[in-house]
């Protein structure tokens, strides 16, 4: 970055547009969908719009790959494209693609006809992508709002179901509540350091003892972000929202926005060098793991169960934040990727299985799935095993990296809590497997054959889960490159 060049520059250079290329691509496709929607016959629009959205997300993936060749800052230090943000861009866009594939069938079965659905997913993804590349708090805030507001709406998309709109309103109100905290934190951080640029804040905070105001600011920002990643004690919205929201959307919002918020958290904690957060993270991690796992033990609704599981996983992930950046950052990044792969996959199965009006989402409904649809059951089993953390699935290495980072930082206590928790957690995932294979179906659950789109989505998640479990090295190596950028 050359300050002199920066000063004279009045309009962004071409390469800077490349640095927001995935966002641009996603926005364009989002808008295309918006424009196409009213022009098309309602009945056939779903397919076409979905395909457009898929193409958009694939194009965004391509754009991400292209973008990775052009690292650097852009738009007057607003965005920073480096391996870190590329990683998350790739993650978010991939998840978007898979969720879109999952949604084809789901939308038809639920008889939801709204082209806006895909538009919202794509535009929401813009926010998530931006969150990971933004290095300015206000931009982060706006990006966060983009992703949040689109998910508020998406959560309420099953408008015929009372629980869906309830989920939406709960999510919306609490989400806005939390964003307000985050925003207040941004304001105070601005007050404490005179800047909202993460780099500049980092310089200030590194240069000497941080002003007390900065501590408060960080506290407030952590409240806001903690809410978004569903870390205890701010996890409380998760089960309700996950239960009410449409299944593919739950898969989406439990992974992509979360990953993006984790990216923000990483930037704030490591790049901005937020002081004094260690025990906060420690307690948050321990609480999240414990509460998530314990509360999940007795759940019957599978979506709700996975909601608690996502709280627990947020806890595992937070463990990485309490460690040293050298190991912690790659571990956390890997975890988000692995979690995304397995959770999106699991929700893809759930979406397929839920049936019209999401009637079949309780554990009992899964009885006999192993017999009825062995392949689907096997896939769900693998995703669940990955969530448990059985080797040769991504979930194992995710936990492995996190805990070994923790042990290298001598966080023995936290590691033990985490390890015990993952043992407890095994129980409720196992319950699903048990029900699928070992219980006889009480009523015949109608089950259509797996359509192509869903099949591709499932296969992609499965391949990703297994790939991360068998050859985690490349992904981890890539993630490790970010260490230099984030932790100087």
């Amino acid at each position, binding site marked *: 970055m050359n300050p002199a060049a920066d000063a004279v520059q009045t309009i962004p250079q071409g390469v800077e547009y490349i640095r927001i290329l995935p966002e641009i691509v996603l926005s364009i496709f989002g808008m295309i969908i918006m424009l196409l929607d009213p022009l098309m016959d309602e009945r056939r629009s779903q397919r076409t719009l979905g395909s457009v959205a898929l193409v958009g997300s694939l194009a965004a993936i391509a754009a991400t790959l292209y973008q990775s060749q052009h690292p650097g800052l852009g738009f007057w230090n607003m965005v920073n494209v480096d391996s870190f943000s590329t990683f998350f861009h790739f993650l978010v866009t991939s998840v978007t693609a898979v969720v879109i594939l999952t949604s084809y069938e789901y939308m038809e079965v639920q008889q939801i006809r709204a082209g806006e659905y895909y538009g919202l997913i794509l535009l929401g993804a813009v926010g998530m992508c931006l969150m990971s590349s933004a290095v300015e708090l*206000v931009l982060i*805030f*706006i990006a966060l*709002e983009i992703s949040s*507001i689109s998910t*508020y*709406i998406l959560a*309420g998309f099953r*408008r*015929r*179901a*009372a*629980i869906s*709109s*309830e*989920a*939406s*309103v*709960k999510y*919306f*109100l609490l989400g*806005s*509540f939390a964003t*307000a905290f985050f*925003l*207040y934190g*941004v*304001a*105070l951080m*601005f*007050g404490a350091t*005179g800047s*909202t640029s993460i780099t500049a804040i980092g310089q200030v905070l590194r240069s000497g003892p941080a002003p007390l105001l900065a501590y408060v600011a960080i506290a407030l920002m952590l409240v806001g972000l903690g809410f978004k990643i569903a870390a205890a004690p701010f996890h409380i919205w998760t*089960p*309700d*929202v996950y*239960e*009410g929201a449409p299944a593919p959307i739950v898969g989406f919002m439990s992974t992509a926005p979360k990953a993006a918020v984790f990216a923000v958290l990483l930037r704030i904690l490591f790049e901005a060098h937020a002081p004094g957060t260690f025990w906060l993270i420690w307690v948050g991690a321990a609480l999240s793991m414990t509460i998530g796992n314990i509360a999940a033990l007795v759940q019957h609704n599978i979506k709700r169960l996975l909601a608690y599981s996502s709280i627990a996983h947020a806890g595992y992930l937070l463990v990485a934040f309490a460690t040293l950046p050298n190991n912690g950052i790659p571990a956390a990044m890997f975890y988000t990727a692995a979690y995304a792969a397995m959770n999106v996959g699991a929700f893809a199965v759930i979406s397929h299985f839920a049936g019209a009006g999401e009637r079949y989402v309780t554990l009992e409904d899964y009885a006999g799935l192993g017999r009825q649809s062995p392949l689907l059951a096997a896939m769900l089993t693998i995703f669940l095993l990955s969530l448990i953390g059985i080797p040769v699935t991504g979930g194992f290495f995710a936990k492995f990296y996190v805990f070994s980072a923790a042990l290298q930082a001598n966080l023995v206590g936290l590691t033990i809590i985490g390890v015990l928790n993952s043992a407890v957690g095994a129980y409720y995932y196992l319950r699903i497997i048990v029900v699928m294979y070992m219980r006889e179906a009480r009523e015949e659950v109608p089950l259509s054959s797996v359509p192509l789109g869903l099949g591709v989505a499932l296969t992609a998640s499965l391949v990703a889960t297994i790939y991360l479990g068998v050859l985690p090295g490349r992904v981890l190596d890539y993630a490790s490159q970010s260490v230099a950028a984030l932790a100087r």
Partner: protein
Amino acid sequence: MVPVSYYLVLSGILFACGVTGFLIKRNIITIFMSIELMLNGVNLSFVAFAAHWHALSGQVFVFFVMVVAAAEAAVGLAIIIAVYRTRETLNVDRVNLLKL
């Protein structure tokens, strides 16, 4: 001359009032208004800090917040309408199908 911290405290009070409103009000619309109140409080902080740092960017942020608030308001009120359609109530205490 007025200490900047007065402004800050005022903003803090507004924020706290917003939080309190969220906690004690039953009507969803009023709760949403409380959130707007919180955002307004934050805005005051931005402006006050802008004055402190002599940085106009602080004022610029307020615009962004306003846009966000507007967008939120549009979406939020739409969601509230949707909820009202299915539940025929605006009392949050009655919007509790999802629990445990």
